[in-house]
């Protein structure tokens, strides 16, 4: 029954969403792409069609370093949140039997989000700082003579903050995928003589693939687009791509920021297109 009236009506049904996407996604991105070709000086934007912004970004050592740094953060955060998130999700899905308990533990996972970004970042100081709790324990117990400096304002603290913040984004999709696994499959694996580890790697991990990929998408976008965590937790000592863009924006260098944003967008899209080679996300959802 694909009469013209029906077709027309179905267009109407998708219209609101299309409109929203057009106004709030397509249009802003187009604007960014257009502005990325403009010129600028200290005072204002100069409409133009120049590749200077791209030429500078793509040839600059700073960009390269920032990207390497960003990838490092992204991959390290991804790996740690994957292991942590998988473990937590596994525990929640297969070891907790009561729904109430499961919900309670889920709420526990959201605690990092109950405080504002700034407060959370500042609270790391009394914990990890030179005179912080951890260093107090370490020096107090005689494990070290001097306070450990790399606990704060270092790559370690940046990744720690990311992991603290974003593990939930790994837990939820993996947990979701796990709940859809037939428990009989685990018995079937046991019946075939598989140990717990073998069951995890040969049965559960492959069946959680969609959840892992979705979690990966979350983590990579969040980390690669971040500027505030990197700035605050590295004490401004390291720069990610987001920090570069943020710096440019705050100095009114919109075209340069736009060009960097476009490059970042393309980079992320390339990563995701590779990622989605491994899993048909539509089928798995």
């Amino acid at each position, binding site marked *: 029954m694909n009469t013209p009236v029906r077709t027309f009506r179905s267009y109407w049904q998708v219209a609101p969403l299309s409109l929203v996407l057009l106004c709030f996604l397509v249009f802003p991105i187009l604007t960014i792409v257009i502005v990325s070709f403009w010129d600028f000086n200290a005072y204002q934007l100069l409409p133009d069609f120049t590749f200077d912004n791209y030429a500078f970004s793509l040839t600059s050592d700073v960009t390269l370093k920032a990207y390497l740094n960003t990838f490092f953060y992204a991959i390290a955060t991804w790996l740690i949140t994957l292991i942590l998130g998988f473990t937590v999700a596994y525990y929640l899905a297969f070891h907790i039997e009561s729904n109430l308990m499961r919900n309670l533990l889920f709420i526990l996972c959201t605690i990092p989000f109950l405080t504002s970004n700034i407060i959370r970042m500042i609270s790391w100081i009394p914990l990890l*700082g030179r005179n912080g709790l951890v260093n107090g324990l370490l020096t107090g117990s005689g494990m070290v003579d001097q306070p450990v*400096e790399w606990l704060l304002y270092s790559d370690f603290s940046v990744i720690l903050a990311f992991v603290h913040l974003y593990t939930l984004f790994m837990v939820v999709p993996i947990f979701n995928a796990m709940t859809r696994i037939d428990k009989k499959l685990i018995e079937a694996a046991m019946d075939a003589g598989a140990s717990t580890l073998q069951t995890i790697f040969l049965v559960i991990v492959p069946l959680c693939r969609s959840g892992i990929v979705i979690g990966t998408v979350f983590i990579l976008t969040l980390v690669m687009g971040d500027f505030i965590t990197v700035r605050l937790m590295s*004490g401004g000592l390291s720069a990610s791509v987001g920090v570069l863009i943020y710096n440019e924006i705050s100095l009114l260098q919109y075209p340069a920021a736009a060009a960097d944003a476009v490059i970042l967008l393309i980079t992320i899209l390339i990563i995701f297109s590779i990622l989605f080679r491994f899993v048909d996300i539509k089928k798995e959802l």
Partner: protein
Amino acid sequence: MSQDDLTHTSKAPSSDSTSPENPSRRTLIKAAGAASGLALGSGAITGFPMVWSQNIKNVTLRQFGTGVSNINAIAEKAKEDLGINLQLTALDSDAVAQRAVTQPKSYDIADIEYWIGKKVFPAGVMQPLDVSRLKNFDKISSLFVTGKLTEDSTIAQGTAPHTVGFVESKESTKFATEPTNWMTLIPTIYNADTLGIRPDLIDRPIKNWKDIMDPAFKGKTSILNIPSIGIMDAAMICESMGEIQYADKGNMTREEIDKTIDILKEAKKAGQFRAFWKSFDESVNLMASGEVVIQSMWSPAVAAVRAKGIPCIYQPLEEGYRSWGGGIGLAKHLSGLELDAAYEYIDWYLSGWVGAYLMRQGYYSAAPSTSKAFMSENEWNFWMEGKPATADILSPEGKLMEKAGAVRDGGSYMERMGHVACWNSVMDENKYMVRKWNEFIAS
């Protein structure tokens, strides 16, 4: 200073003034000043007679700027004295520059720093002020008119306010070299910045900017990561180290920028810096927690650290201060009654009450002489003259800032503002400098 984009609307009750418009306001202001001088109160001048024009009552003006002078108390007082409604929006300095250029219709009055003005004014989004309409123009510190505090002082490097303080004509966006009738920004607030230190954690005297690079403080120093200001502090440091001699620290050449950044990079690599800060709160936390013992700092941040009971000194240095100044200017679109109200408001700003309020926070008033009438002798002597306080020094909110007997770090107005080595500025090579700065941060 607040990083939040907050809009404060004054909630002051409208005053039911009965005074008719008075043609000779200036004389009355003087009288009022004298009267309140007798009152000797910090802000306790409620019986201030109304002398301001009545037709501007209930006009609403939208002012935005950095949190430094965007203070609710000022809006409330303006409502009380003038009857105008002042809507305040506080942003950080980068955001202020953005907003000023990109959304000129969103404000009536811009409260910006002079170096931001240097960026914003040429964009043609503001109109200059006719100084002949300002009764208090001649009270403005000469620092903002001629650039000299006294006849024989030398003009500091950087974007000295007087260099961008005037344009040639009403329609011009070109800065004049001499004072003219058309002023871009009426100065409101300014100060001299230096390094803050933790005297309890440092066991030697700090005298120079280069001390921040002392290996003894390895991993315990910080500078601020706002490129246009950070590069200045860096220049003060490099010059103090004897590494570079700048022609103009406020307008460096590419070679000077390269050299400066190289020195910074090296120090960063060697682990000299604990962190770079970008916001007021960060600088306070770094200092208060002891993560850092010497860093570039702002005056109220030092006060905030001290307020926690932690010793902190705003250390005067031999090379002098890095200074900054802010002013208020008019948006281009302002006209008619609102323009009149804005002039009225700006004149009021210079008339003393606001200046006294700001001075009590540790800043300087653009027209110090008018403020004197609104301060107690003890306050004036402590803040302006650098004399020991004879009684406790309170903030405008009534909080204890200094105990009796304390002396202001750096001394008197003349000692501090007379030792400005460089003004905050925006360079011709700004774009290049920012890229190099990013390189430094990413290194």
